[in-house]
């Protein structure tokens, strides 16, 4: 990513592994509660809405919109080349996800901007789901 080396990468847990395996396959997977149909992200052992314990991994369309965003000018670590965009993406199925918005002109950025997932391989194990203007 830069001369300063790779940014810190996620270390999947038994709970989150299906999400990260999906990203590696080019699919955005989130949990869905079998009882109440709520989409759940980040991965949880039970549904925060109804406390149902049967959560299935389902495929998200990867489409959504920018719910909120910030342009970081002073990064926490040198591995993140600033400026970069951190955003909360509201997926069209429901649920919210933190990510980076890439490939867009800065003046294009706004709450409500339609975006779609794009995948960036970072290591053998980790591919990050990023979003770009749709």
């Amino acid at each position, binding site marked *: 990513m830069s001369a300063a080396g790779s940014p810190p990468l996620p270390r999947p847990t038994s709970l989150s592994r299906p999400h990260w395996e999906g990203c590696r396959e080019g699919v955005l997977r989130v949990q869905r509660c079998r009882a109440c149909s709520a989409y759940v992200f980040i991965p949880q052992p039970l549904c925060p809405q109804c406390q149902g314990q049967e959560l299935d991994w389902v495929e998200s369309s990867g489409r959504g919109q920018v719910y*909120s965003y910030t342009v970081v000018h002073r990064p926490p670590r040198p591995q993140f080349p600033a400026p970069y965009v951190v955003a*909360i993406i509201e997926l069209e199925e429901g649920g919210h996800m933190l990510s980076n918005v890439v490939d867009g002109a800065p003046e294009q950025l706004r709450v409500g901007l339609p975006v779609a997932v794009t995948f960036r391989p970072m290591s053998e194990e980790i591919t990050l789901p990023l979003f770009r203007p749709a």
Partner: protein
Amino acid sequence: MSHRSPLHDVAIVGAYNTRQARQLDQPETAVLLDAMRGALRSAGLGFADVDGVNVTSSVRRLHAREVVMWLGGRPCWTGNEIGIPALVEASLAISAGLCETVLIATAQAAQYTDRTLTAPWTRPSNEFVECWGLFTPAEFALMARRHMHLYGTRPEALAEVAATIRNHGARNPEAVFHGRFVTPEDVLASRMVADPFHLLDCAITSEGGAGLVLTHRDRARDLDVEPVWLLGAGSDKQGMAYVTAPVWDRYGQVGRRAGEKCFAQAGLGPADVDVLEIYDPFSFEVIRQLEIFGFCKEGEGGDFVMDGRIAVGGELPVCTNGGLLSFSHAGLAQLIQKPISAVQQLRGELPGELTVPGAQVVLCSNGGSGALFEDVLLLGREPAA
């Protein structure tokens, strides 16, 4: 009329800050001992009077039971909470008769370099946060941005908050940024960290220690100091900080429940509060808390803060010691420095130009929307009715 609350059995009788600085070269234990002795001195008490302790430090991860040993084994009770919950925990122990007089103290020293710009506890390592380059200013910026989108809150309002609080600190000789006055224009002209937050919208980094002494009301009345009374408290914990998206619709109201419970115990409402020593990690959080604690309507916080209303001399002064933006933001001490500032304000111990004449009731808080929790404490010059 207040609800009968065990908190009403307890008063704060000592409150003390050590010297605060961007960087302290003293050993942390020395700063901690200064905090302990200073708090007791402020109460007119000594180590022999203490039978409960909650003393810890940032670097050494000191356990309160180690401090019991320092005090020759006299204290029988130890507390584990940090910040405002440490005062609540101690008060419940006092009220229940587990102990009578509790010393709370903490310190951070010799940890930062002169280049330190972010506090270590603000760098999350969670798998769904860290990889996006998130850190605390970005977390809170995502909340502020959504508020601006929903309600048209302007960067000028954030700058007004930051300048007001920083100018309180500029007039406080004990503040790390003493003498450093800024205008809202200076805030807007400072470099961007995570928009909408400029550098001067963000808490400083610093080191220092702080201490408090709480005792039973019967003991408090025998002491030759002015007690400050606990009127109510509340917590609102909505999850672990910095592990998931800070979604305004879900977490933006964090603290509202805490405020309601706190006011109910005290039998008071927002109109009874004279001063706010609320948590100010970022300028926007003051605007948000004015709304959720009921000082203005949702979405109106940005207008509320303008025209000097939250400055000393205004209708509702906020962070009168200079807060985290100017006074200090040291380790775990910064959390208890909110009630300490309240005690100093109510006792008239702050510099004259920062003293709010006739102040009777102060609301304190720790936490914030980006951190998914809020703790609230209401203190008064008079005990609960």
